[in-house]
């Protein structure tokens, strides 16, 4: 007989987003459950044993596990209930509007969890070699950066002895340093773009400090080896195309891919949540509610953040919106569309409520040291903000106060280089 449980709020994922959102809900007296497939809270933070977390949110520098421990403690103190080692395999909206999760765990078998509101906080997964169709053979020794990080930091296993890292995403940069500290030689980090994909501070602290070459505008064009990786071939790019005459070989036994993150929304999509092709995350209104009433989203499952501190802030904000909905306020009706225009990859959230102040998050498509972000509505510039360092790797945010968002009509954002003024 399958047992059922009932909560006011069910949160899927016990990473920073899920824990922070649950804390807000439980603190407000709501009966809140967090479900996670792992045996411990913290999500991917648990394998991020380096420091650099929490400077904004906790005003001090913490390691990933420390950050995880703090947010988990806050959640426990707030009275959040936990279900670890539990995988949610489906989310359904019943005909009466109730949300119904099916979960599997060793301890309890199949459980049905009913909730008035569901917060999606499943995070993201890494893009793989296969997603990019990187040519070559398929030997052992090819890992995503995060998988190698888990092997090294959780299992205590050395993924190899001599590595090349494809892509300069933050996890790849962190892993370049981590591998070096474990005695693994990092031959190069190869990046197809003319600028790094990761944060500037990671380039300095993880590559420059260890004299690890960063090959910008280069592409990994071949992986060689039968049983185990033996070498890779790398070629410079000319207008985005590899110049194969100038390709060269780097001997190595390990290749790490750090080539981007994809919000993990298969569960959401199966529940009928509409996704934004630009983010890979759900389309949400200013309450962080998805197109399915009662299902909210925050953190990396919504869009990939650069700092966990922003994830925590966004999750808390989303949770406050969940509370408002539980208290009986209206849903997304009466909201107006938000659009990202020139030089912006995306904007989150995708709708706004007149009179309600909202923090918008953006990703730039351009690199510049003087950028101006503008909000425009009905032909009028509502607000503009200058940024001294605009990089696709770094998230931009803009608070638009409710006093400026009074009128109905589409809200458009655009980014331009400052010198154009």
């Amino acid at each position, binding site marked *: *007989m399958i047992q059922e449980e009932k909560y006011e709020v069910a949160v899927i994922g016990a990473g920073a987003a899920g824990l922070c959102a649950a804390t807000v809900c439980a603190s407000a007296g709501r009966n809140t459950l967090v479900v996670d497939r792992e045996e411990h809270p913290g999500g991917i933070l648990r394998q991020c044993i380096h420091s650099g977390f929490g400077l904004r949110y906790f005003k001090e520098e913490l390691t990933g596990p420390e950050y995880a421990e703090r947010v988990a403690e806050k959640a426990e103190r707030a009275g959040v209930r936990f279900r670890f080692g539990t995988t949610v395999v489906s989310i359904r909206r019943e005909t009466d509007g109730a949300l119904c999760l099916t979960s599997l765990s*060793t301890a309890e078998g*199949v459980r049905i969890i009913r909730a008035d509101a569901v917060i999606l906080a499943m995070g993201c997964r890494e893009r793989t070699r296969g997603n990019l169709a990187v040519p070559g*053979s398929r030997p*052992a020794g090819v890992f995503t950066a995060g*998988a190698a990080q*888990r092997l090294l930091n959780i299992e205590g296993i050395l993924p190899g002895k001599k590595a090349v890292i494809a892509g300069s995403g933050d996890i790849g940069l962190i892993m370049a340093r981590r591998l070096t500290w474990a005695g693994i030689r990092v031959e190069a980090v190869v990046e197809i773009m003319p600028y790094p994909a990761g944060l500037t501070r990671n380039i300095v602290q993880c590559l420059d400090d260890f004299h690890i070459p960063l090959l910008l505008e280069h592409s990994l064009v071949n992986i060689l080896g039968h*049983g185990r990786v033996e070498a890779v071939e790398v070629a410079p790019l000319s207008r985005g195309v590899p110049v194969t005459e100038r390709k060269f070989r780097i001997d190595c036994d390990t290749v790490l891919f750090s080539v981007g993150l994809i919000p993990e929304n*298969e569960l959401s999509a199966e529940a009928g949540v509409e996704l934004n092709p630009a983010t890979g995350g759900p389309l949400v209104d200013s309450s962080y509610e998805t197109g399915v009433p009662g299902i909210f989203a925050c953190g990396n499952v919504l869009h990939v953040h650069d700092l966990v501190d922003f994830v925590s802030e966004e999750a808390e904000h989303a949770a406050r919106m969940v509370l408002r909905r539980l208290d009986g306020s209206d849903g997304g009706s009466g909201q107006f569309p938000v659009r990202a225009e020139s030089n912006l990859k995306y904007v989150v959230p995708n709708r706004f409520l007149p009179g309600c102040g909202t923090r918008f998050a953006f990703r730039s498509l351009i690199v510049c040291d003087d950028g101006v972000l503008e909000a425009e509505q009905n032909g009028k510039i509502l607000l503009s903000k200058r940024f001294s360092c605009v990089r696709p790797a770094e998230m931009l945010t803009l608070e638009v106060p409710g006093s400026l968002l009074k009128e109905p009509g589409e809200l458009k954002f655009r980014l331009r280089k400052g010198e154009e003024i």
Partner: protein
Amino acid sequence: MVYDVAVIGAGVSGASTAWRLSRYQLHTVLLEWRSDVGFGVSKANSGIIHAGFHHQLSTLKARLEIRGNLMFEALQHELGFPFRRTGILVAAFSREEMATVHKLYEQGIANGVPGMEMCGRERLLQLEKKLNPEVIGGCFAPGGGTIEPYRYVFSLVESATRNGVCLKCDFEVAEASRAEDVWRIRSSSGAEVRARYVVNAAGLFADRVSGIFGAEEFTIHPRKGEEYLLDRSSAARPERVVFPVPGAHSKGVLVIPTVEGTTMIGPTSDAVDDKFDTAASAEQMQRILSHVRNLIPGVSPRDLITSFAGLRPVMDNEDFYIALSEKAPAFVQVAGIQSPGLTASPAIGEYVKDLLKSAGLPLLEKVHFAVELAPRHEVRHESPAALDRLHSGNPAWTHIVCRCEKISEAEIVEAVRKGHTTLDGVKFYTRAGMGRCQGGFCAARIMRIISRETGIPMEELTKKGGNSRLAAGRLGDLPVNTAEVRGGEGA
């Protein structure tokens, strides 16, 4: 002991032969040089059960293909591997192509292909809604389908071993000699097996094995096929296997709805020199994409989750070479089993059995022959109520290890206990690691389970046997270049 038959090679041909022989009162040994069965040519097969209209009946491969195709329902019933008759259609986009389709249709009728149908544009679009609307016509054969080739090999071998066949993996045939009507076969690591009859089903290396036994000289030419796999969420997934109009040496690049819900595009067909060259290339990917988008415009590189390549073992005359050796006694050649070898494989096993009989092997049916395998439970196919019942017998059924394909710890443990102790062995047996994250989340967890079940330390596990070690040791095993690290800190 002296075996009655030694089958060399545990791909589809060898496995099917060993399985066929397992119903007789014989001692059969199946020798495989890799760490697991089906890990050579068979693993990278496209998984098509061909309908039987692509080849002329004058060839052995066409005759065995047509016979083999008809055997799959019974086989699936007994062995439970994933198989579905989706139907195969060939889509033509010009009048020249339509002329070829007419020939295929007539060939299909001559070959006795059931339900073979010439189709106009409307009919084709009704059969396959994802098809490029610029199609002008084609043909359809409802008896074609798709199968998971490695699962098929695993089931054949599992049923064969349950019925007494002895499987020896990591056995690379290095030498053979014959005395007193018995073959003595030595492996490269010094192991020895003796058998009265030998079946050479060594795939790409059948030429080498033939030489070792002093049998016929011939050359197996590897012909590479690259394939790309699309995520199960791909909107381009067709209902049926979609073929283009074939070229001279291959059936063309196709779109395949796999039985397990993903979509495969490929294969290419290019002669290569190296029998180990299974690398994928950027040029071929572009070629495949442009070809299949002509068939099904919805195919998108955004849906790619992985690529792989396989090698077809090709004889000079392009046909199968299945015959008693005229040079080496009690030696059966099963060589050149390229496409449609998978489709033909059940018939190949039967054919080889008859050849052995004609060479004097006595075939007495066993009194107790347990052909059927117990049905396998798989979390992805079970209802919540059924899963809850499985959980009460074994809680590992509701511990999901591979999130993308919903594979439980119980399924992984079963694979390991059945002898699949490499990461790829577990992957191909269970699908764990085959989904969109390609093992990014679950590989370490699976390694932990394999290690726990086998006692092999995690750092010594391999991807696919041999020198495919997954790790280089434990943290602390490598000296750290402190000068470099310290220099870093000072900078």
